[in-house]
């Protein structure tokens, strides 16, 4: 099953809603589009809504870690606002929760970023 990515830009914040299965095959095609989008729109912060992501493996971790690094360089933050238990376990295992902000909804993610902007 493919991975569908819905992107929404609000100011310098990029919201990504991901759906389906995020593996190496999908990551390959998503990565270049994503970096382009972030560069062109001078994105500073990233909000991830992964509630409909049914599967993710370490390739997905690599994709998110890669975006985190560039966001970090720009002094921004990555906020995770929803994910399945399976995806959360991978984040835990890899120590991602130490670098990601976590909020319970897209709204709260946005208002948190508004505060730190």
């Amino acid at each position, binding site marked *: *099953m493919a991975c569908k990515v819905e992107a929404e830009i609000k100011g310098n914040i990029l919201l990504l809603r991901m759906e389906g299965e995020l*593996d*190496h*095959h999908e990551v390959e095609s998503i990565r270049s589009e994503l970096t382009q989008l972030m560069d062109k729109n001078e994105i500073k912060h990233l909000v991830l809504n992964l509630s409909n992501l049914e*599967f993710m*493996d*370490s*390739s997905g971790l690599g*994709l998110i870690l890669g975006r985190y690094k560039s966001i970090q360089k720009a002094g921004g933050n990555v906020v995770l606002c929803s994910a399945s238990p399976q995806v959360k376990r*991978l984040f835990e295992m890899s120590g991602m929760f130490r670098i990601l902000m976590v909020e319970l909804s897209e709204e709260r993610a946005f208002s948190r970023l508004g505060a730190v902007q």
Partner: protein
Amino acid sequence: MNNSLTCTFKSISENEALARMIAASFAAAYDPTIGELSDIKTVVSEAVTNAIIHGYSGAENHEVYMKMSMVERVLTIEVRDSGKGILEVEKAMEPLYTSRPDMERSGMGFTIMDHFMDGVEVVSEPGKGTTVTMTKQLTSVQAECH
């Protein structure tokens, strides 16, 4: 019921999803928990992805071999490539180690396999290929009433 399945497929990244689905279909007959099924899909995805991108460096004209067997609810999954092999297996298995940071690899593949399975064994010979063998005891299920 014991069972076994072997398959061979092309080293194209589309087959990462295919391998996951085959593994899930094989395991599904044993009433695994949702967590177990998700673990199985994840480790198959890791091992097959590694065979494709590391073993064969992304070349698509090679073959990946996968073998699954279930004996007394112990699941064994073997994923094998005839690719370039691993020089230092121990180092490769360290969390966060990756030889391909240029590909934004996380270096978490083997760590995930270790966490999700009861046993992971890697046998590799540089220039010959790599075989990853993983085992997992599925939780027992209550006898079904017919």
